[in-house]
């Protein structure tokens, strides 16, 4: 009887963990600094200092450098993304609005409409050529107590 109870508890737990969108894929790469897909650039995403509330408009920063680490000026970006587990895109159309200092760009108009796993995708067009990069981020509720 004890064995049955333990097994059913484990099954319940497993069901809870895999149901709905509660669990992102294992081994999700959450790194916010990586090479672009073809290795042309190094890209770093900087989130806002204070975690925004759900549905609050906010800004990130993008730092763009060559593969050797030299800041890249004058690049253009297209921003896309969404929640792969829910089949929807970003609720807004964020865009890079200006270059703040050499190789650091303001990414404005970001908004997350719910918690969970979001993809942020950048298509980059710079002096070294065109490339793209995808970042993953887990959005959580800032403490709601």
């Amino acid at each position, binding site marked *: *009887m*004890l064995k049955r*109870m*333990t097994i059913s*508890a*484990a099954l319940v*737990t497993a*069901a*809870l963990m*895999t*149901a*709905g*969108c*509660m669990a992102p*894929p294992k081994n999700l790469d959450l790194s916010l600094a990586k090479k672009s897909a073809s290795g042309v650039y190094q890209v770093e995403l900087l989130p806002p200092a204070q975690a925004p509330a*759900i*549905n609050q*408009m906010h800004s990130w920063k993008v730092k763009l450098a060559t593969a050797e680490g030299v800041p890249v000026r004058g690049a253009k970006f297209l921003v896309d993304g969404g929640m*792969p*587990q*829910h*089949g*929807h*895109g*970003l*609720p*807004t*159309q*964020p*865009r890079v609005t200006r270059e703040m200092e050499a190789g650091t760009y303001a990414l*404005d*108009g970001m*908004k997350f*409409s*719910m*918690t969970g796993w979001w993809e942020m995708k950048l298509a980059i067009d710079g002096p070294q050529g065109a490339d793209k990069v995808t970042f993953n981020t887990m959005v*959580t*509720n800032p403490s*709601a*107590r």
Partner: protein
Amino acid sequence: MNKRVIWTFAAAAAFTASVFAAQELSAPLRDKWTAQEVAIIASMRLKVAGERPAELSNAYELKTEAATLGRALFNDTRLSKNGQVSCASCHSATGQFEDGRQFGQGVGTGKRRTMPVMGAAHSPFLFWDGRKDSAWSQALGPLEDPAEHGGNRVAFVQLVLSQYKARYQAVFGPAPALGKLPENASPNGTDAERTAWAALPEIARDGVNRVFANMGKAIAAYERNIAYGESRFDQYAEATVRGDARGQESLTPQEVRGLRAFLNKGQCVTCHNGPLLTDHGFHNTGVPSIDPKNPDRGRIEGLKKLLKDEFNCLGPYSDAKLEQCGELQFLNTNDTGQLGAFRTPSLRNVAARAPYMHAGQFASLDQVLQHYATSPKAAIGHSELARPDEKHAERQTIRLSAADIQDLAAFLGAVTGPVVQPK
């Protein structure tokens, strides 16, 4: 004592230990939740919504006199073509500020389900298709809609300035000089009304628009005070967060099973999240079309109207600065997912306001839940719901049994609270 007692105690302890090992728990409550579930439940408490931040495009939103004037306008049936339709005709204060009908019935019959006023102040976009970006500009839509109030702005402005002049001026200052106006004119009206509108000098048209916009701002100031009150779910949620075992009795065991399904198998919390149980977004969930040959295109068309609206955040009658109009500045106009997508309604008090969906397609919550259990193909665009016959690497089909549906319906009943409104 005896062997049986010891064995039972040991089994219970081991069972509890294995459950504890698998989940993080904060307190020995009647109903056990993972730490992640507790965080989500905490985020669904009504109080987390807080005071709605001010609508920056409406400088009069917080003024008491504006709300008093707005309430009078809200209830004035003279603000219609036939003198019989007011905002309250469809948004009735005695119920849920809606009409319980499949389609709104004003001067004519509308195409969509009347939405409640509560919670609208928290949403960046209004209407099922999000074609308005503030409560004040939303109020102007039905006034000129031929199926609703059937009126025109020149007629309305003349009525307000003759019947409400002192109250209007106490809030908004001196009314603009409008010169001689025709009886009826509007850029949105009949051919005759459009012609009359075009014939007006620019300064008169601007003055009429200004007063018209102010009517909306007064109405929005009144609507801001209409809100949802706490439900048994909120008591339960607070108790769960605080580790108050007694407080968890606010929900019955069936309602708790429904909440579990809401957070897990049903995937409802995907969109029905946050303190108002809506993400304020637009989603296509394959709701059946009233007219299959002509399905409602939803948000895709709403976006076009929003961008052209002279009363939007960026327009001349908005009190907001350019940089305060973030939602419009960063509007996503390229998302093909918005075809056939509609605004996620709040689920607060949902059990009190059948029928459901943008054209009242479902007469009961049971039918709504059946819809999600079936996850049909969309009439237009693509449904976000994973279909049972599709294989998705990342998405899962919603699997609900008949018992799950009953439990969910029970839970949704527990989300009903009072409507808070001015006396």
